Structure formats: structure tokens, C-alpha cells
């Protein structure tokens, strides 16, 4: 195995990692602050991808597609929070799981109804369609752009949460929402805004993955389950933890997918190894999570002062 192949796989892992981070940041904020299990977060990602793809087909402009995708999923997230989620904050996790499970069924069928069951393809924008030379390794410009966008989003999240007034309110809300409300902050609007922000990030993830994956009903669930694993490993409520564990999970998953079949081929025949590799890679993440939880039930980077 050559060095460049290894480096490309690592970059792919990084790219998957930042995509996972964009999904898990919203999830972990909503978990940590509102104590809400949002299984329908994957639906926001899917709808974001559909909005962007539909806008791209009509306008041929990636910029407009991006705006439509992000704004659309943020608006959808806001509506979801006001209509369903906000009524369930005080309930136990079971009711939340049930309600968001119902939402997933609804959104998947809605997408099938509007856009059909067959996958929707979105082209890579012209300006990003080539390859880029990184220290002698040629790598897809678009995937590199995803990494950059993801890192920018992560930086933005860090600055927003740690350096701004809104971020201070978010942190305060996560440790004691009642007191924050008593001090005159409109906690309802704050919650809705956080939910919408998480939805917008999911929309960014959906938009960015549109050109590399096919946009289809149900595309949100596999990645949502991985994102859930990410936030459990990272420590629920911790955006920093979500960032690190998203990168770890992205690298493990990609490395598993790329190298396990090669490894298996040593003692299995080619076809079996090819089939077993991706499945084993997916299992690898679950095993990793089980291991982390068995050793540190609060995750790798638990939120302090709770």
C-alpha cells in the first residue's frame, strides 16, 4: 500500500469526520441544553440536501442552492421545535424517541412524495470539480472544500459558544435553564434559536454531501445513527467532545472501509472480503462505542460542572 493511498484515505476520514461533526454539533447542543433526543435530526439533514438539490436543478447556481438548503432546514428546524419538540422537553426520553420516530416516518414519506423514490443527483459545482495538489497528493477539490467548510464551522461554533453573549446564554441555559429564564432571558426563543442553528448545521452537512452521495428518502438515518454514536462517545452536551469524537469516528470508519477488505483478503476469498469489509467497518464504530461506554459511561469528554 502506497503512502498516497493512505494519505487520501486519511483525508476522506477527515472529510467524513467534519460532516459528522456538523450533524452532531446540533444534536449534542439540543441534547445538552434541552435534554431532548432528536432522532429527526437526520430528517433535517435529508431535507436540507433535498432543498439544496432542488434549488440547484432550477438555478444552476451552487450559491443559491446553499442559501436555500441552509435557510430551508433552519426554518424547518424552527417549525419543528415550535410545533413538536418544545412540548416534549419536560417529558421523558421515551416520548421524545416516539415523537421523533413519527417525524422520521413523515419526512421520509414526504420526500418520496415530492421528489420520488429514486435518488436525486447533484453535480459538483464547476469551480470545485477538479483535483487539488496537496504536498504531491492529488485530492478532489470538492472533498477538500468540505474539510475546510467543516473546520470553519467548528471554529465558528467555538467562537459563538465561548466568545459571544449568545454563547454565554447557551452555556448558562445548559447548566440551569430556570435561573436563566428568571433573569429575564426569553429561554423559549433561545431554545428555538439553538434548535434552528442545529438544523442549519444539519442543512450545511446535507448540502455539502449532496454532490458526493445520492440524495434519497431515508438518507438521513444511517448517518444519524453514526452521529448519535459520535455524541455518546464524545460526551453528551459537549460540542468540543463532539468535534474530537467525530474526527475519531470518521477516521475509524473510513480506515475500516478502506483497509479491512485488504486485510480480510489475506485469509478470505476476494468477494467475501469485499462484502464483509464495509459491514465490519460499521461494526467497528459500534464496538468502539461499546468499549468507550464500558470504560467511561459519560463519554470521552464529559461536560464538567453538571
Amino acid at each position, binding site marked *: 500500500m502506497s503512502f498516497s493511498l493512505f494519505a487520501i484515505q486519511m483525508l476522506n476520514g477527515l472529510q467524513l469526520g467534519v460532516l459528522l461533526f456538523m450533524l452532531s454539533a446540533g444534536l449534542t447542543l439540543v441534547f445538552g441544553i434541552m435534554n431532548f433526543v432528536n432522532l429527526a435530526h437526520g430528517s433535517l439533514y435529508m431535507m436540507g440536501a433535498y432543498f439544496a438539490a432542488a434549488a440547484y436543478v432550477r438555478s444552476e447556481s451552487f450559491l443559491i442552492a446553499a442559501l436555500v438548503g441552509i435557510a430551508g432546514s433552519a426554518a424547518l428546524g424552527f417549525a419543528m421545535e415550535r410545533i413538536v419538540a418544545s412540548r416534549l422537553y419536560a417529558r421523558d426520553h*421515551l416520548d421524545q424517541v416516539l415523537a421523533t420516530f413519527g417525524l422520521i416516518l413523515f419526512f421520509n414519506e414526504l420526500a418520496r412524495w415530492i421528489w420520488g423514490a429514486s435518488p436525486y443527483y447533484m453535480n459538483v459545482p464547476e469551480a470545485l470539480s477538479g483535483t487539488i495538489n496537496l504536498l504531491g497528493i492529488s485530492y478532489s477539490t470538492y472533498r477538500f472544500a468540505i474539510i475546510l467548510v467543516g473546520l470553519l464551522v467548528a471554529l465558528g461554533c467555538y467562537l459563538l459558544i465561548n466568545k459571544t453573549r449568545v454563547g454565554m446564554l447557551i452555556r448558562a441555559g445548559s447548566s440551569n435553564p430556570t435561573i436563566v429564564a428568571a433573569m429575564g432571558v426569553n429561554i423559549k426563543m433561545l431554545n428555538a434559536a439553538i434548535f434552528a442553528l442545529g438544523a442549519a448545521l444539519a442543512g450545511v452537512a446535507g448540502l455539502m454531501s449532496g454532490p458526493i452521495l445520492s440524495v434519497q428518502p431515508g438518507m438521513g438515518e444511517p448517518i444519524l445513527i453514526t452521529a448519535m454514536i459520535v455524541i455518546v462517545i464524545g460526551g453528551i452536551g459537549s460540542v468540543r467532545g463532539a468535534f474530537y469524537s467525530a474526527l475519531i469516528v470518521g477516521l475509524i470508519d473510513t480506515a475500516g472501509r478502506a483497509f479491512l477488505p485488504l486485510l480480510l483478503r489475506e485469509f478470505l476469498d476476494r468477494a467475501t472480503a469485499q462484502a464483509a469489509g464495509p459491514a465490519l467497518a460499521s461494526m467497528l464504530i459500534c464496538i468502539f462505542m461499546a468499549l468507550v461506554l464500558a470504560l467511561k459511561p459519560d463519554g470521552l469528554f464529559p461536560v464538567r460542572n453538571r
Partner: protein
Amino acid sequence: MKPLRISQWVAAAIVLLLALVPIYAQFAGEPFAMTFGSRVLIFALAAISLNLVLGYGGMVSFGHALYLGLGAYAVGILAHHGVGSGWAQLGVTIVVSAIVGALTGIVSLRTTGIAFIMITLAFAQMFYYLFVSLKQYGGDDGLSISARSDFGLFTLGSPTALYYSALVLVLAALMATHRLVNARFGMVLRGCRVNERRMKSMGFSTLRYKLSAYTLASVLCGVAGLLYGNLTGFAAPAYLAWTMSGELIVMVVLGGMGTVFGPLVGALVLLISEELLKALTDHWMMVLGPLIVLAALTARRGVYGYLLDWDAWRARRQSGMRDGS
């Protein structure tokens, strides 16, 4: 005079109607009623097992379909290798479900709340991917079961035998649940749901009780999977999918979790509404989804739970009137 218990009458009526389904199917010439009835019973059995964990133990397992899949694959894989004996298949199902249940249970039960939901989901996904990767057993496409379980005296290839086996198992499971939750074991389990720390400080090794309940439920659900494999003649990774686990949760909550009879009612209500909606529109899930959301928002006690509440209210009123006179 003791007031008429409406919930008991409803339960008796449902059981009676279920027992008569094969006769109706025979005379009306509607084999669909048999298949549908069997599906209801099998899912009821799975939901009853989940209810033990979810309703009485307070453990929100989002991976219960794992055991449904294990049961179906036990039939499929053994039949694939020419082992058609139902007893052998049943034995393998029980042993495998118990081992998987106990091992995943030990790890999962270290966590609570959302982490427990996620880790049970992750284990189910793990086995889902495992079966997808097993190309010799059909992989993604699933494994068709050529010969149904043969129990010597009867074979599950006969729809009537399958139906009544499922019915007998459901009734036995209902009876067992009733006995279990009112016994010491069930009391401790229900205590854990309400306040585990208190149970611990009273000296109960709560993990042991929860793990036993979890393992027991896994085995029962594995048996439901064995029946399901026989019903559909197929074992597919989709049986372990997280949507299946979600549907089982919906059944338990819809019927009334933490009530003995609730899961059966929930399975009936969910599967019948699915069939009705399917007849109405192709996009039936767009209707079912919001209905589930609505149920989660409002109907917290479940259909059977509300019947029990009604009975309790009537009994209170009755005794109040007696005291007043």
C-alpha cells in the same frame, strides 16, 4: 356488587375474537385474515417481551428487533444447513438470544438514559451489519427459508398450526407477565423503574434484576422471531432494522406500557391502522407519522392504560356512593 371491569371484558373479547380468526378465515375463504392475524400475534409476543423491559423495567431499549432477527435467522440458517427440526431451532434460538441478551445487557446496563437508548440501538445495528455481511446467508437480500420448523407432532408450515402456536404463546406470555410482575422479582423490577437508587440502598443488586429481565425479554422476542421467520418464510436484515425496534416501541406505548394486556392491544391497533391507511393511500406513512407524534404528545397511558384508568375511576365512584349511603 363488584363493578363490571370494562378492561377485563375488552381483553376477553379480544382473545375470543383472535381464537376465532382461523375459523372465520376457513369459512369466508380469506387466507389473508390468517396471515394478518398471525402477524398481529407474533408482534404482540415481541411487544409483550419489550414491555417487560420498557414498561416494567423502565429501560428504553431501542434495539429490541435484534432478537426478532436472531430468531428468524436461527430458523433460516439451520434450515439452510438441512436442520429442519423445530425443537433444535427453538433450542438454538433460546440459547443464542439468551447469550446475546446477557452479553449486550451487561454492557448496556452500565449506562442509563439516552446512552442506554443509543447503545442498545448500536448493538442492534451491529448485528444488522453482521447479517448484511454474511453473503453465504443471503447478505443484503436476506435468506429464504425453504423448510418450515418441524416440531414432530405439528409443523409450522401449516398456517393453522402457526397461528395457534402463536396464540398459545401469547396467552402464556400474558399469564407469565401477570404472575411475574406481581411476584417479588417484578416488584423489585418496578421499584428500579421508579427509583433505582432507593432499591440499591435497600440492598437489592438491581443490575442482576434488570439483567435477568432484559435477558428473559430477549429470549421471548427470539421465540417471536422464530415464528416470524416461519410466517414470512424469510429472514432478512430488515428484521433487525432500527425501524422495526421503533415499531415495537410504538406498539408497547400505544397499547399501554406497564400494563399486562397493553402490548397485544398496541400490536392490534398499530397493525390494523397500518392496513387501513395502506388501503387509503400509497403515502400512508405520511399519515401514520403524525399520528404517532400525536400519540406521543397526548395519549401517554395508551389505549389499555386508559381503559384501566376508567375502571379505577368507576370503582372509586362506586365505593364513594356506597360510603355516602
